[in-house]
């Protein structure tokens, strides 16, 4: 049997909290605790949970932006070494929640998208790749020389997506990619993302507290609470027949339209 694309085994990430007493050990918060997760090629996995449940910490661990306190993460069956990092980064990319803070305000769109291509030693022609990727996110090529503050919220998030796709990754990790956007723009970006995932055959890990976003893009879902996965399965099964009380509570809390006569 082939290895899963990304596999996490008994993953833990503890954060030490400030001292509460002069002596004794510092209290610890288990942001991610004993978490096992397998991501296969082509998976579209949703991660849901409330704020503070460890979703973003998990994303950072999967991206190797943070080191686990214990446990391991393998990529294609291999533990990552520093020398493989450029390959890994080309393969696994991220979109953050708020493009206003994830895009450097002093860089033009061109520079923003060029950066990963240069840093990660992308082999093809950089200029034509920028052109290509801007086309993929349906942005007009004339915005090359603009700065993030000259763009609308939707355009900014498109640039963030273009940057993530620049090195032709196979895995996309998206941390609340639409929650900072207005509803109509959110819909556009969701459609764009879903089309790109389909056409580029991306493996997706989508982190969101919004269950309707998850149900749009993901076939599988894990529900996190206090750093643990409390329920997992296909999105349909989990949403239709939630087993865990917390999952039932989450689903019941989604704002619904009133019945209109």
């Amino acid at each position: 049997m082939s290895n899963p694309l990304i596999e996490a085994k008994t993953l833990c990430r503890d954060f030490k909290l400030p001292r509460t007493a002069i002596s004794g050990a510092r209290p610890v918060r288990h942001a991610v605790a004993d978490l096992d997760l397998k991501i296969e090629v082509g998976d579209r996995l949703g991660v849901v949970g409330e704020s503070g449940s460890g979703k973003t910490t998990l994303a950072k661990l999967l991206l190797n932006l943070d080191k686990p306190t214990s446990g391991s993460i393998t990529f294609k069956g291999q533990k990552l070494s520093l020398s493989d990092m450029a390959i890994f980064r080309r393969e696994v990319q991220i979109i953050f929640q708020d493009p206003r803070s994830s895009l450097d305000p002093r860089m033009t769109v061109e520079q923003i998208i060029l950066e990963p291509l240069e840093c990660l030693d992308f082999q093809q022609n950089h200029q034509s790749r920028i052109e290509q990727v801007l086309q993929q996110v349906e942005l007009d090529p004339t915005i090359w020389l603009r700065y993030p503050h000259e763009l609308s919220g939707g355009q900014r998030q498109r640039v963030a997506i273009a940057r993530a796709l620049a090195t032709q990754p196979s895995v996309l990790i998206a941390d609340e990619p639409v929650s900072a956007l207005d509803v109509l723009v959110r819909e556009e970006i969701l459609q764009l993302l879903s089309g790109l995932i389909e056409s580029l055959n991306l493996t997706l890990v989508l982190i969101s507290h919004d269950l309707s976003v998850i149900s749009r893009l993901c076939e599988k879902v894990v529900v996190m609470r206090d750093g643990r996965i409390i329920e997992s399965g296909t999105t349909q099964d989990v949403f239709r027949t939630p087993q865990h009380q917390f999952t039932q509570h989450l689903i019941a809390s989604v704002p619904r339209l009133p019945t209109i006569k």
Partner: protein
Amino acid sequence: MKFLEVNNLTVSFGNKVVVDNASFELAAGERLGIIGESGSGKTMIALAVIGLLPDSATATGSIRLAGEELLTLNDQQMSARRGNQLAMVFQEPLTALNPLMRVGKQIAQPLRNHKKLSRNAGLARAIALCTAVGLPDPEHIVRAYPHQLSGGQRQRIGLAIAIACSPKLLIVDEPTTALDVSVQKEVLKTINDLVQQQGTSLVFISHDLPVVSTMSENIAVMRNGEIVEQANISALFNNPHHEYSKKLVDLARATENKFNRFTIGSTA
């Protein structure tokens, strides 16, 4: 005469008009939702009504609360009404609360100012208000600082401050955007219950149609500083006039249907 009458309200910063000729009315005890995207002028309307527009803004037109014109009042007169007759709950409780003051004292502040309560009476009332907004263990919570509370608890403190003097008009600006969905539902229910108990008029501002529609009878749709449509909920959903409202309604319906397909397996 309606309880709140806003006529031809225009708010501008220099040449830039952020609220363009907005008019709406609100009867006593009625709930009005204002919906629109970021930058559409929703918050500016709220700030104009409560008299907290930045100094660089100019407001023209008329805002009458119970027959009294608010736009021509000076700062001192407005302060006497703010927190007393009308009050506001802000979007981000962490920035709206004073980080250096225990929350009990912050809740008691409007009571001490407007109702001239003593310190002890103010604190006792603060504890009662914490209970009213559904905070557990109010005797301890009033001694906490804002950073020691969770997002939902902070927003409840913001609500307690706003309702402390039983205002006749409550303006709530995106109160739950910073909160988790499950907490959002509880906070919204608390607001609804309080408004109903006290017969308060409510202006509820949000960008989220499903949320607004649970919080109001009438909805004003804003776009680029203009109120493009005003209707009661069933009219808005059944027969939206403006193109933008139609988009919002269609999208909300489609999202709901897609989600239903997952949760109950039907597209009712």
